[in-house]
Each structure stands twice: as C-alpha cells, then as structure tokens.
C-alpha cells in the first residue's frame, strides 16, 4: 500500500474540524455538537483522513494521503509544544507505515524540520513544503501589484514573521527587487542577523520587533508569523496597502474593509486532484476547486517528479534559486497561483480599486 507522497497537517480552526468530522459521519447522521467535538478531537491519534490522486498536465499522476495530526486548533501555542511534537512524530511514523516516498509537514507541523530536531523516521523523506509556499507568496505579491497597477521596484514591503523559514525565504527573494524592505520579528537577535545579511547584499532595509514602528510606511505586507490564532490588527497601514496573509492559522484579525487582504501561499492544480472520501470543499475551504496550501502542493510536486527528497529542511535555508527551481517544477505539472481571494471570496476587484487610492 505504498504512496508517492504524504501530506501531514492540522486543522486550522474548530469550524474546519467540525466540517471534516461531519463529512466522515455522512449525511445520514446529525453533526456532532461543537462542545462534544472539542472533547473528542484531542483524543484522536494521527492518521490518514483521505487518499489523494493528483494529475499533472505532463500526463503523469501521483498517489498520496492526507494525514491529520488532530492537534486541537486551540492548542497550537507553545504551552502544548511537547504534546504537539509527539503528535507530529506519530504522524511522521504513520507516513512511513503507509510507505510514503516523501512527506510534507504542513503548517505548525513543519516545526519538527525547521527546528532541526531529530526523531524523524528515515524510511520516508520529509520536507516542510516552505519553498513552494514562498514561491506562491512571491507570485501572489507580483500579481496583486500588477492588478493594482504598481511594481515591486517602487514598493516598500513589510514582512511580519521575517525570521521564520517562510518569512526569511520571502525576504531573501524580494530584498533586492523592492524599493525598501521592512523586517519585523519577535526575536531581536535573529532579526538583527537577517537585517545585516540583507544590507550586506545591497538591500535597503529597516528592522523592528514592533509592527507599528513599520506599518505606516508599507505598501505591501506579507504576514508569515507563527501565531496560534489571528491577532494582528494592522490598523496603521496606508489606505493603499495590500496585505498577503500567508499564516496558517491566519495572522490578521480583520474588522473592516481595510486593509485589502488576500490569502497567500495558495496554489491550484490545473488538472485537479481527487480525494476519497471526497473531502474537496471540506479540506479545501477556498472558493475555487483544487486549491491547496503551498506546503501541501510541494509534497504533490515532489511526488509527481518522483523526487523523494527533503527539498525544504531546516530554518532559513530557502534561497531564491531553490524557490525558482520549485516553481519550475510546479509549472511543469500545471500547478499555478490560485486566484487572489480571502474568506469573503475573490479579492481582485478590490485590489484593482486601489489604483484610485494610489
């Protein structure tokens, strides 16, 4: 029963958990009440939730599985780190048991690879999937600016969570292409190191551990912080700013129409993928079919390529060259940027309307 790839993840919020459990129960049975669900999910051991068949425009296909760690959505913070690492390790063992060639550790679960922690089984290669996430964030920013009639070269880009694996990958990819780069992260030591690295390379950068120190100068914001729940307000952004929320869970707590936010790091498989049980519309909660997180898409791409390797591993190792290599593979299989959207739906008209403000 071996598979090309395994996608290891966790549910973003309790609504998502309820949707998955309801889908597994079937239409004949009533949904499990929300309070009961919160007492059941924490006990579920990591396991395969559905099987996946992904199709490529190159005519090949790859078989995979989606394994959920069943980390409760309200236990993503550091207080539960030990327990959650145990779940990720169990999920990794599950991928090995299923004979996965490569397994991607999506969302929070990538901490195991980013932290260079040992304990991962060797029979399967593990990747964080962060390289594809960076590729999609960069393409998303390029697309948004294009719609807004602007360019990267004339934009000031703020990255929140800049020293994380995804944030630093974006910073390295964009630093020399923007007018100015603003870096924000909680860890002052790491932030200084990244700041110095990019300045040495010739970028114009400013760094701070406080978002509000930087926000009012940003034309574009990339949110890539590891937060247990949306907590960023970003109320001091200029009216013309565009925000790419690439967090999982999402970073930005949205209260009004401003700023314009699109969900970043998302791609679409143009030839589609099939899941059984059919959880399309349950695991993919986006308004377009065959959309998935970049980290999961990286697992699919490596499966389609039969490249069973730890493409993304460690923290801060994502280079522009590796991003371009991953993007080239994605294009070979027809995996492209998803239409820009957020929870309310397509956002491209709103982005286009920013032309008037600018």
């Amino acid at each position, binding site marked *: 029963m071996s598979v090309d790839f395994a996608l290891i993840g966790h549910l973003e919020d309790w609504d998502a958990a309820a949707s998955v459990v309801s889908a597994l129960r079937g239409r004949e049975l009533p949904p499990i009440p929300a309070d009961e669900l919160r007492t059941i999910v924490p*006990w579920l051991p990591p396991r395969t939730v*559905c099987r996946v068949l992904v199709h490529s425009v190159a005519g090949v296909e790859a078989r995979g599985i989606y394994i959920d760690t069943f980390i409760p959505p309200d236990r993503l913070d550091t207080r539960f780190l030990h327990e959650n690492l145990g779940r990720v390790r169990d999920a990794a063992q599950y991928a090995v048991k299923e004979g996965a060639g490569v397994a991607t550790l999506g969302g929070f679960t990538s901490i195991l690879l980013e932290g260079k922690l040992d304990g991962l089984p060797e029979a399967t290669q593990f990747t964080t999937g962060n390289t594809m996430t960076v590729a999609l964030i960069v393409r998303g920013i390029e697309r948004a600016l294009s719609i807004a009639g602007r360019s990267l070269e004339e934009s000031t880009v703020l990255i929140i969570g800049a020293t994380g694996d995804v944030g630093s990958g974006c910073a390295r990819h964009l630093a020399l292409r923007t007018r100015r780069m603003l870096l924000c992260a909680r860890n002052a030591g790491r932030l200084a190191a990244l700041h110095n690295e990019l300045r040495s390379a010739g970028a114009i950068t400013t760094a701070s551990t406080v978002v509000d120190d930087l926000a009012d100068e940003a034309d574009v914001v990339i949110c890539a912080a590891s937060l247990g729940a949306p907590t960023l307000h970003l109320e001091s952004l200029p009216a013309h700013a565009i925000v790419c929320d690439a967090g999982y869970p999402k970073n930005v707590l949205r209260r009004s129409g401003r700023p314009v936010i699109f969900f970043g790091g998302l791609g679409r498989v143009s030839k589609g993928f099939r899941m059984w*049980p059919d959880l399309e519309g349950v695991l993919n909660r986006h308004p377009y079919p065959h959309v998935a997180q970049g980290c999961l898409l990286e697992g699919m791409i490596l499966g389609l390529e039969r490249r069973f390797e730890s493409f993304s591993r460690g923290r801060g190792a994502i280079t522009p060259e590796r991003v371009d290599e991953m993007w080239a593979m994605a294009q070979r299989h027809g995996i492209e940027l998803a239409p820009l959207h957020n929870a309310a739906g397509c956002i491209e008209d709103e982005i286009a309307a920013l032309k008037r403000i600018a």
Partner: protein
Amino acid sequence: VRLIDSQEAYMETQACCTDTVLSFQQQSVWADVFAQAVTGELIGAMNYRTLAEMCDLASEKAEASEHAEREEAHAQMFRRLGERIGTQVRSDVDAPYWSRIRAAFVRCATRGDRTGCFVIQEVMLESFAVASYGRIARIAPPAIATTFAAIAAEEHEHVEHAVALLRGIRERDTDAFDTTVKTLHAEVMTTLAEMVASEDPKGHCGLCSGTCVKEALPAVGLCTSELRGASLRQYMQTLDAIGVPGDASLQWVAQLPV
C-alpha cells in the same frame, strides 16, 4: 482532601482501608464505577467460557478457560474494593447495554465465527477496559488505583495477544477480516459508545444505584469525555496494530453516537 459529613463514624472505619477518606457522594460514585467494572469482567468471563466451548484444540480450550478464570478473579477484586469502601457492589449481566454486547458475542459464537468473537472480546471490550481502567488508576485513591492499574496491565496483555493472532488472520483474508470488524463495530462499539456518551440515550443502564452516575463522575476526578476519548484512542491504536487502515477506523469512529 478530607471531606467530613454526617457519616463521620463510618468514614473513620473505612479510612484505614483506602488511605483516603471518601465523602458519601464519592463512595456512591465508586460503587457505580465498580458495578460497571464487575459486570464487564463477568461478561468477559462468559465470553471466554463460550470461546472455550468453541475450541477444538485442548491447549486453546485451556487458554480460553484460564482467561475466563482471570476475568472472574478481576470481578472478585473489584467486589472486594467495594467492600473496602463499605459498599455492596451490584452486578447484572442482563443489564441492557451489557446484555446487548453479550448477545452480539453469542451470535458470533453461534455461527462459529471465532474471529468475530476475538474482535468483540479482545479488541473492543479489552480496549475499553485497558483505557478506562488506566484513566481510573491515574486519579483514584491509592488502594483503588493499584487494583485498577494491575487489572489494566493484565487486560493489556490480552490485547497484545489478540493483536498478534488477529494480524495473522487479517493477512490471510484482508477484505473478509475488515468487513467483519466493520460489521461488529456498528453493533458493539455503538453500544459501548452509548455507555460512555454524555447522556444515557437508551435510558437507565440498570447498574447505577440511583440516577445515572455520569454527571457525578467529576466528584472522584473522572468524566465521561475522558473515558470515551481514551477508550476510542486505545481501540483505534489496537486496530492500527492489527493492520486495519487508519482512514477506515477513523470513519467508523466518527460515525459512533456521542
């Protein structure tokens, strides 16, 4: 925690037996918990006696009989625990939920389905016993905890024995095995899930001395959601070890009543 009420004189006599003073409510809750445990063990003993009758080989017959005796011994140990806290422990193998489980086992035995019998007793019932006794051992006063922990360990051996046996049976005919488990799951696990549901969906269990004990479980540090969660996790992990695909067992468990 030392809780004193009007039964002080009685409690002083039993304090020396349990190392912990129990309130009247706690004593009543433990009595109901023991009643479930004793009845479950007696059902287990009956199931193993039935299995012994089905065995052709003398060695298998002896093993099943030995297991039956161990289950009876467990029931006796739980009864003695009841006596130590000053209460008579009820038991009733004809109580509604337990009798449904026994009936499912007998139906398997009647059609000569030994695999089904093993699945009911050593996967489903023992998973619940191992997990729930384990949870009780973590929170109970020492004298009670020791007994539950010891019996949980023995039941765990039964599970491990079953895993090795059933993995072999499954490898010989995977589809037939998985179909058997799925069918029995719908029948037996549904009953077990109802027993640990937050409310009694089918009325009084026939064992609690008064109203349903579930709401009073927090008085001794237990709650139904923990017992249910731990038991279902043990069950899924047992099925994993046998080789049943995790996506299948997940779907089955998701369809249980809550």
